[in-house]
């Protein structure tokens, strides 16, 4: 019993909270980029340890069985048989229904789950696909994503005042200077915590590359050390990159700061070209 992928869209994949405990073997944790929206989506279904599809525009699914579904995260103009669905709400799916995520309205990634989750393969304990590491693969046309049929009896939605927002003109990324921060020169430090950066279209689940003023690299070089979620590395050309779920587990570039998790979740919802600014905490 399943969703059948009619159109795969830009990039959609199965995610969960990520793969814990394997970074020492070189596995990135992967998982949902916007964990806040992901968790709220599952909460609406009354599920905690489950999974979801991380959706980008263009995805179209045909339901082959009844269930209760929830969507959250970005507004991707989701419709059920052509009728608009509200984000952060649950709704009934009937056999034969067509669920579409037509285009980007606000945010970048939506989360779609069903009661009881999707019955997909686990790899090292996690359902999450990892694109960079070629663990599992994104959804393709014709693919079936199984779920256990369910008959809903009530529906929930999150009040609009409480849904996450990602439409600031300039998004503030709260970041703690790292233990390598003082190796950078004064100009670079002021640039980092002062300048406006723009999200590069080369950003992806590995990390968010930022364009704008370039920083100077420290004279001191550091051994490659493990990368935390939200670590900001300064690349060879002076551009900052905020590391995300599919990041390399070990990194040799200098790390200037770590972005707070909550800011990382918002970052994943900002389209290329969006302006961001780092604020020290």
């Amino acid at each position, binding site marked *: 019993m399943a969703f059948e992928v009619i159109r795969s869209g830009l990039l959609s994949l199965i995610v969960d909270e990520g793969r814990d405990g394997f970074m*020492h*073997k*070189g596995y990135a944790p992967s998982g949902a980029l916007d964990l806040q929206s992901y968790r709220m989506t599952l909460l609406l279904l009354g599920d905690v340890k489950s999974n979801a599809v991380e959706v980008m525009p263009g995805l179209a699914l045909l339901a082959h069985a009844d269930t209760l579904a929830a969507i959250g995260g970005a507004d991707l103009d989701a419709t059920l048989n052509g009728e608009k669905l509200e984000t952060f709400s649950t709704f009934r799916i009937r056999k034969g229904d067509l669920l579409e995520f037509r285009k980007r309205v606000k945010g970048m990634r939506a989360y779609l789950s069903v009661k009881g989750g999707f019955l997909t393969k686990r790899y090292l304990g996690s359902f999450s696909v990892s694109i960079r590491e070629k663990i599992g693969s994104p959804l393709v046309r014709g693919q079936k994503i199984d779920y256990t049929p369910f008959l809903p009896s009530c529906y929930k939605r999150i009040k609009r005042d409480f849904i996450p927002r990602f439409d600031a003109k300039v998004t503030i990324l709260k970041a703690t200077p*790292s233990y390598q921060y003082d190796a950078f020169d004064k100009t670079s430090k002021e640039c980092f915590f002062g300048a406006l950066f723009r999200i590069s279209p080369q950003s992806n689940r590995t990390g968010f590359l930022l364009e704008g003023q370039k920083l100077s690299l420290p004279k001191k070089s550091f*051994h490659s*050390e*493990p990368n*935390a979620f939200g670590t900001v590395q300064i690349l060879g050309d002076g551009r900052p990159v905020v590391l995300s779920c599919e990041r390399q587990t070990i*990194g040799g570039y200098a790390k200037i700061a770590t972005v707070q998790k909550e800011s990382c979740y918002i970052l994943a919802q900002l389209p290329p070209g969006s302006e961001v600014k780092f604020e020290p905490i």
Partner: protein
Amino acid sequence: MKIEKTGQDSLIVRYASVCSETLLEKIASDAIEARKIDEVIESVPSYTALWIRFDSGKISFEAMGERIGKICRNNAPLKRKNAPLHTIEADYTRGKDLSRVAKLTHMSEKEVVTLHSTQTYRIYTIGFLPGFAYLGILDPRLVLPRKRKLESVEAGAVAVAKDQTAIYPQKSPGGWYVIAYTDFKDYERFETGDFVRFQEI
């Protein structure tokens, strides 16, 4: 030894500024001890440091730092058995960059192969890709900076760059010089601190 915060739920223990096999063994051993703590989610040893990710809902940075510090500062003799040796069969005739390396290091191909295959390496850390083990230390006569342009590297490629060597576990863009190929696929068994040797076939 310094313990520093790397995020809301992670910290790093920096032991020293210079690598050594003795230090590596200590760090690899501490990583295993740390992993036994319930609140520890990740325990990643690398070169001169140990990185820990912990459940910040259950334990504070300060408390975690104290517990980890106790393990790291404990200089009791290592209880770990000798680390395993992995012998990797390597076909140097298929190394597409072998002649390039020979030229750049002013040696014959045979000398490059001998220097690479007679050394016993340690795994200094695993990262970049699952199973990608950074092996050191390469003979100083083979040291070359990474390629400036990334090239496509096949799975099983045995490569060198700077003072390290490694095997690419899957097809990937790479900046290291490919000097051999191997059919070895048992990357799951690699642990930081293990010994590795290449056997010319």
